[in-house]
């Protein structure tokens, strides 16, 4: 038996295919552009190719994320809170705080020892767009987003980027460039800014596990989060896939009845 979980986010669409034992046998991540339905087809087609199974053999499909409603073949749709918690708990299997940092609104999710979500809180509306902000910052710094981390690592000090609002922060980046800050200092400032916004969402308790695409491409955010909170912060394996993996596990539950 194979099932799929699909996480349709504002920056990437991710599909994970798991077998009857919950083992990942196919995965794909495609950038979000145009219609979500097309991204879903592309990501799921690639993941099924890796799994070497046709779509018709999918016993269940669980969708999650911003555009979960855009998966016509979904047998269920669940919130990303639940799916990220499930994906993380499946790997860690202990009480923890999951911090999901994706393209839109990061979340702090408290999970008990049984894997149940006991509380969750997302960033307030005027501070959304965190992952997307890093993409915009890359444009202003004239580097590909994947280079932003190298730039930040090269900086000896951070240029302060402090606005709640990602649009205001973007203006701050331009202003810092005008004032002569280096691209590296600004890149590091952006990562620290995101860490600070996350620390404001809710009280964090050890152990902390990070999921979502931001830590996959910008691990400097996690480093800043650990330094500024003085807490132990770990990144889950394949963090960008945590939501889709959790969704796939729920699909498996459903297929098993």
């Amino acid at each position, binding site marked *: 038996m194979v099932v799929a979980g699909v996480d349709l986010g504002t920056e990437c669409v991710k599909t994970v295919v*798991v*077998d009857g*034992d*919950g*083992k*990942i*046998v196919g995965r794909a991540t495609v950038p979000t552009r145009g219609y979500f339905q097309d991204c879903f087809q592309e990501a799921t087609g690639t993941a099924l190719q890796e799994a070497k199974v046709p779509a018709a053999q999918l016993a269940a499909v669980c969708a999650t994320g*911003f555009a*979960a*409603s855009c998966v016509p073949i979904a*047998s*269920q*749709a*669940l*919130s*990303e*809170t*639940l799916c990220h918690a*499930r994906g993380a*708990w*499946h*790997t860690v299997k202990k009480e923890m705080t999951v911090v999901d940092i994706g393209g839109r*609104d990061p979340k702090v999710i408290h999970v008990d020892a*049984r*894997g*149940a*979500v*006991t*509380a*969750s*809180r*997302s960033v*307030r*509306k005027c501070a*959304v767009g965190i992952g997307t902000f890093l993409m915009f910052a890359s444009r202003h710094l004239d580097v590909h987003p994947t280079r932003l981390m190298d730039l930040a690592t090269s900086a000896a000090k951070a240029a302060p980027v402090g606005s709640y609002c990602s649009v205001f922060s973007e203006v701050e980046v331009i202003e810092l460039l005008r004032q002569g800050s280096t691209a590296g200092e600004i890149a590091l400032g952006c990562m620290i800014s995101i860490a600070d916004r996350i620390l404001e969402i809710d*009280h964090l308790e050890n152990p902390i596990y990070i999921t979502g695409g931001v830590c996959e491409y910008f691990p400097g955010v996690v480093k800043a989060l650990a330094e500024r909170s003085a807490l132990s912060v770990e990144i889950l*394996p*394949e963090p960008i896939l945590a939501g889709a*993996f959790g969704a796939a*596990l*729920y699909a*498996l*539950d*459903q297929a*098993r009845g």
Partner: protein
Amino acid sequence: MPTVNRPSRSAEATFRSSARLKELMAAHFTGVDRAAREKSAPVAWCTSVGPVELLRALGYQVFFPENHGALLGASRVAGEVMGRAHALGYSPDICSYLTSDIGAYLARKSPLTRYGLSGAPRPDLLLYSTNQCREVRDWFEFYGREWNLPVVGVTSFRDLGEVEDSHVEAITRQLEGLIPALEAVAGRRLDAPALEQAVERSRTCSDLWRDCLNSSASRPAPLSFFDATIQMGPAVVLRGTAEACDYYRLLKAELSERVTAGAGAPHRERFRLYWDGMPIWGRLRDLSTLFASLGTSVVASTYCNSWVFDALDPRDPLRSMARASLELFIARAEGPKQRYLERMAHEFSVDGLVFHDARTCPNNSNVRFGLAQRLRRASHVPVLVLDGDLNDLRCFSDEQARTNIEAFVEQLEGAVPATAGGGHG
């Protein structure tokens, strides 16, 4: 686990009494408007939890601008007109009832046209109490300047721990001080029996309205928060009148029938929630259907209980009005607020609390000083915070709210993962 279905309105209740409610509200609006146009009675604007009984006793027809603000929000006219008030210097960060109402006045738009009115009826006097916020005074003073009218009111205490006799005395003195101005515009003296009657009717209305709200302590709850925001109309705009009392007798009887029949609103009640803070007027229907589709009933609220005045006593009208105005939840400090919410959560057997953090209404957003976290720790009741606003939908994200509500209901289900093997291969 639930599949997240498209919300369906069929999951919600309808009320037989609503036909009478519509008649009553229409008669209220047209009655005040007629008095304003024909000068057949003095007309006053009053804040929603202000000292309306004084106005009733002096024969005023009374209009409530906050009710107009809610109508502007629910009809989504607010979004079209608020910018007019912003341009006049009324910030987008202050009360969006105020900016909606002043914007509507400037744009000459009003949902009251459905009742045949051209807009809010023009008053002869404006009467406020700052027991809920300072904005109401600024709001009324705009019109006082615009129309050169008297603006009078009570400058109240806020953030009260215990309501002391000295507080009550001070507000009583202010109420007494208002009487000459109210009499001058009305052209008559305040009649003591008339005031006692108005206070008695307000108290009766309050008691009946509380009985209606308390019917939702039953399982399933016959009246949801979303229904109650509509049903509370007479408790707001007709407080102190016999008509309001008659209406709530009718509604109470219908709710009793629903309790006996086990009819819930919504029909399916897997979970029961409490709502604290303002309604999100422009999304009332959407949120109602979303919660209903998730089998979740919002059974009680701080907001709808704001028109329950236990202290009112016709034997001591002014002093009891003063005490009632100070005992309101919105006028209290964090300690009494937490105790109130804990009591309500217990009495209504709720599975969780929803706090609406309304961007432009800090005085009625109770999550800004750690109350939600303290409550969660003390009572172990799960808490959800929704960012939004009463009228300014630019402060509300449909997608973020939907995701958070769905996640909260999933949390209430207490889903414990089945133990599948495997993982990252």
